[in-house]
């Protein structure tokens, strides 16, 4: 049934067929179907996206249709901005204006950038593909570029990351997905947009010594093996922009099979559905980085839109990521090697989907872990449903949520360094500024999800590092121990020690005497009795007490300056608490505390060679990929 919205069906935003299938990030279809009533898309709704005749008929059938509030000429076709009737052309203009504004305001795309669009075939990335290619100038001389008003000379490519490997559907290879995506991308390919297809498991090929990858024959289902050979065919040939292949050969089937196994094993080890989705998201983000780095892209554009960001605000809150949340909500994210930009961040999904429908821009649905027939209930999914519910109740809530989140303080890496005055980003490439800027701007980041760490989290990581381990010790082990994999006893003592430390600190800070306090012995006994949970809660409590001053000073938990060890971090990685508890914590105890090693970007030994190659190639200064 997943094939129903195929390339020809193209699910033109039809509520009936969409609600079941076309929601890559979950929000798209539901955004459509939920608001279907208010989106007066005449036409396609009745005949499943089939013909165009229905549209004109429906339009004529409604003679009382109000005029578009913007141009006051054409009849309105849709409701935009919650209540304003717009015609199709004006909707397009207003969305394009929002994108342009975002690009100019945050200098997202500059002259001679190479922009890699993360393309899923969904509504938002489809709109972004059309818009970016519209804003792209193909001028070859400065004079021609200046004449190309409103356009920028940049290189555009798109990448599709196939996550078929992590789906729990037997005999499902992503070949059909890839085919559909290729068809959607074909018209743009003709206009010079490069098309990359990468499988999520390929992450595990790169930066690994080839010896790792020999996997026993026949470990992979037949279908996937076939697809593996097909999937790696890339669209590299005959492109003059190719800057030389990176330091590995095109992976052969065996290698990919091994990678496939390892990816699946890693995801399977995380029991919690939400954490699984989060892990896949991290892997996808890194996969995008790898493609971008290999092919010399300078920016990665994602179709993250306002609706997605609103969901992100809630899921982030629900996962305890209040500190790092604003890092994920900005137009620019320079935490990784290649900056990530979100030009659609001011557009809501309903309008994007409507635009696709009105313009007959084909879209497709690719099943993923969190969307599609096999998706399990997760916090991400629940949040999506909740948002739909409250948006129904009172439209515009999405924007209120974003306004709230807009008051959260972003991090230094959420902007490009200021350009010199008078610099015209559209025409001139940035000089010097980018090289001068550190990707993470000295903020300590989580090794897994790259969330900025609170000072407490940095201390936790630091304390672990000071243990009696050599510089070449396994990062996974340390993290494993921290996550409580080392058994309850170790965890209890560690937690207690920390609680006691905190107690001491407080004791020193507080005026001695009249405050109710308890002696250390009692702390120990009660902690033991409640088997760590009591201590756990206590530590939550002490965190609250540490944050007491936050209300008044506001700067209590500022951005943590990098400690002396954080620059080198020999062998150790720090991890945010949410990852530790939610992703690592659910990996089944001591089964494999070192499974973290499978994370390609943490793999030091194997990664080094590829790392060097990358360094040479990148125009900008490259962040040490390993923190």
């Amino acid at each position, binding site marked *: 049934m997943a094939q129903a919205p195929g390339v020809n069906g193209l699910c033109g935003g039809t509520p009936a067929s969409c609600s079941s299938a076309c929601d890559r990030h979950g929000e798209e279809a539901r955004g459509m179907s939920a608001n279907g009533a208010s989106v007066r898309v005449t036409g396609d709704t009745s005949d499943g996206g089939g013909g165009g005749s229905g549209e004109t008929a429906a339009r004529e059938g409604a003679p009382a249709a109000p005029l578009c509030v913007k141009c006051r000429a054409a009849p309105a076709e849709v409701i935009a901005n919650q209540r304003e009737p717009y015609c199709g052309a004006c909707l397009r203009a207003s969305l394009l204006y929002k994108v342009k504004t975002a690009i100019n305001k945050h200098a997202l795309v500059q002259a001679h950038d190479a922009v890699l669009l993360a393309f899923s075939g969904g509504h938002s990335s489809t709109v972004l593909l059309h818009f970016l290619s519209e804003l792209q100038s193909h001028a070859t001389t400065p004079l021609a570029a200046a004449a190309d008003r409103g356009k920028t000379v940049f290189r555009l490519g798109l990448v599709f990351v196939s996550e078929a490997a992590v789906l729990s559907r037997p005999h499902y290879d992503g070949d059909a997905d890839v085919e559909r995506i290729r068809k959607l991308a074909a018209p743009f390919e003709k206009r010079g947009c490069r098309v990359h297809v990468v499988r999520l498991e390929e992450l595990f090929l790169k930066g690994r010594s080839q010896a790792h990858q020999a996997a026993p024959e026949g470990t992979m289902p037949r279908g996937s093996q076939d697809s593996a050979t097909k999937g790696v065919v890339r669209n590299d040939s005959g492109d003059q922009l190719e800057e030389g292949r990176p330091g590995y050969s095109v992976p052969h089937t065996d290698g990919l099979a091994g990678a496939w196994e390892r990816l699946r094993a890693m995801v399977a080890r995380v029991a*919690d*559905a*939400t954490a699984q989705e989060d892990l896949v998201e991290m892997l996808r983000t890194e996969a995008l980085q790898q493609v971008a780095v290999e092919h010399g892209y300078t920016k990665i554009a994602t179709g993250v839109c306002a609706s997605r960001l609103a969901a992100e*605000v*809630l899921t982030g*809150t*629900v*996962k*305890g*990521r*209040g*500190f790092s*949340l*604003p890092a994920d909500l900005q137009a620019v994210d320079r935490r990784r090697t290649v900056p990530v930009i979100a030009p659609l961040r001011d557009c809501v999904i309903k309008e994007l989907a409507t635009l696709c429908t009105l313009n007959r821009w084909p879209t497709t649905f690719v099943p993923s872990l969190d969307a599609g027939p096999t998706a399990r*209930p*997760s*916090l991400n999914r*629940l*949040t999506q449903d*909740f948002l739909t*519910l*409250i948006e129904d*109740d009172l439209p515009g*809530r999405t924007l*209120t*949520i974003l*306004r*709230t*989140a807009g*008051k*959260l*303080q972003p991090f230094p890496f959420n902007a490009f360094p200021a350009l010199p005055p008078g610099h015209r980003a559209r025409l001139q490439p940035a000089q010097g500024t980018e090289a001068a800027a550190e990707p993470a701007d000295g903020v300590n980041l989580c090794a897994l999800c790259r969330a900025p760490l*609170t000072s407490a989290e940095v201390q936790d990581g630091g304390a672990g590092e000071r243990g009696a381990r050599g510089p070449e010790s396994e990062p996974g082990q340390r993290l494993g121990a921290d996550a409580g994999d080392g058994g309850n006893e170790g965890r209890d003592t560690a937690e207690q020690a920390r609680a006691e430390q905190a107690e001491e600190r407080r004791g020193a800070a*507080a005026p001695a005497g*009249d405050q*109710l*306090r*308890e002696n250390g012995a009692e702390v120990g006994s*009660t902690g033991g*009795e*409640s*088997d760590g*949970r*009591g201590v756990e*809660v*206590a530590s*939550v*409590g002490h*965190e*609250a*007490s540490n*944050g007491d001053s*936050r*209300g008044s000073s*506001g700067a209590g*938990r*500022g951005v943590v300056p990098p400690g002396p060890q954080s620059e080198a971090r020999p062998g150790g990685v720090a991890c945010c608490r*949410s990852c530790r*508890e*939610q992703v690592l914590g659910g990996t089944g105890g001591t089964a494999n505390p070192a499974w973290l090693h499978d994370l390609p970007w943490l793999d030091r030994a194997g990664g080094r060679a590829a790392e060097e190659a990358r360094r040479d190639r990148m125009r900008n200064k490259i962040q040490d990929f390993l923190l």
Partner: protein
Amino acid sequence: MVRKCVLCDERRAVLRRPKTHQQVCKDCFFAAFEDEVHRTIIDNRLFKRGDRVAIGASGGKDSTVLAYIMKLLNDRHGYGLDLFLLSIDEGITGYRDDSLETVKRNEEQYGIPLKIVSYKELYGWTMDEIVREIGRKNNCTFCGVFRRQALDRGAAALRATKMVTGHNADDVAETVLLNILRGDIARLSRCAAISTGDDGALPRSKPFKYTYEKEIVMYAYFKKLDYFSTECIYSPNAYRGFAREYVKDLEAIRPQAILDIIRSAEEFRFSLTAKMPEQGTCERCGYISSQRWCKACVLLEGLNKGLPQLGVSKSRGSAKAPSASSRTPIFLA
């Protein structure tokens, strides 16, 4: 095979702790529950020896368990606190009169003196009269605003130095989400604090901030505590209902989520440019207020002048009301 308690490994497990999903026996559950509240009180230094603590008591499960456990911990750990029950009589026939009976029984059961303050004596209006005047819509605004002030007045009469309320972790998590949904930065930045008004005359705190609602219900059930469980007869807060359901759904998938929401709210860093209302005092009654008049005075003025919509309906843009802020404040029942 009979399941043993995972904590003591002796007695039979009779319940699964909602917070941790551990199978535990009754005694271990009590111990863990009480210990967690004790840790919260100690770690956050909520009280000083000799404090006179007013316990906001409605007769419902949260405040009944709170009164019980405050008494228990005060005796067990020698906090040295003077405890008082403080109840508000909103004047809702069929609801509050019954729940007040519960509180009166609690007074005897726990030996904690009780003080009842009524809307009628403070404001000259009972909720029944207010509802008759303004209808069922928005009446929670009046009730919430009046209750907060009534609690403060009652505490002052008791010469209390601290006030505790039975807000539990679920309540706090809901409030965090609601404040995100309505874009109320000022409340969002303080709603997760375990105690507020620390520099004022009467700091208020929530010892159950990390305690799950389900555990409170279980505790009350197993301890056979006497509490009153009926929803208020006037409109239940539909909007909070959305958030409540969402939180419960989240909890079903990942119990830790409730604590994670609270942690998030604790760690939010708002940019300094975000506008925060300044706290001043009401020109009319001297109560704390961010406006010229406090909300209670605005509402009361409206009632007395026969303009009950004053201060309730959205007044942004056409601000006729004397300094009425357009937002409806959030107060927990």
